């Protein structure tokens, strides 16, 4: 029960961070630098839609289950 509530709060926090990013002005360089994570830090939880038509939820799908390798690419159809 408590665990479900804390998960809900964490998700709400992630959603608020996303909303803050949307609202942030384009020149907010310092805020961006503060948001950037580094090796050894805890990764933020996230939920994103995938090419497989599913919602990837880090908490549900990966945390405590699998290591996750993520490769960022500029755009589809660009060589990696």
């Amino acid at each position, binding site marked *: 029960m408590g665990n479900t509530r804390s998960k809900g709060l964490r998700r709400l926090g992630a959603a608020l*961070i*996303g909303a803050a*990013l*949307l609202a942030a002005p384009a020149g907010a*360089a310092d805020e*961006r630098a503060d*948001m*950037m*994570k*580094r*090796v*050894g*830090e*805890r*990764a*933020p*939880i*996230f939920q*994103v*839609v*995938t*090419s*497989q*038509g*599913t919602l*990837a939820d*880090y908490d549900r*799908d*990966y*945390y*405590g*289950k*699998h*290591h*996750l*390798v*993520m*490769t*960022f*690419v*500029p*755009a*589809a*159809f660009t060589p*990696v």
Partner: protein
Amino acid sequence: MEGHQRNLYLYDRFNARVAGVSRDQVATLEFWAKDLGLTFPLFSNPIGHLGIWFGALRQGYPMFNRTTVIIDKWGVIRYMRDGSPDYHEILRVLKQLHGEEAGR
């Protein structure tokens, strides 16, 4: 991406999952995944917050730069590297994580 697809069975052996991330819409990524024959997911992140968190979205650039990040199963970032994925290095880190996992 094809390199990741080739290494999928090794990632599986090390209890790892792989995903690509870009700012494209889902339909575009779906088409790209089909075109390359990818069986792992591509994350659609038009807002770009994942790029900001993991250092793949630089100020003044609209698109992500090529970056590979490894998050271990305990939620800690263990590897970040700019540029195209170095598959040998990725496998080395995953092997190390797998060893740590076995030791816990």
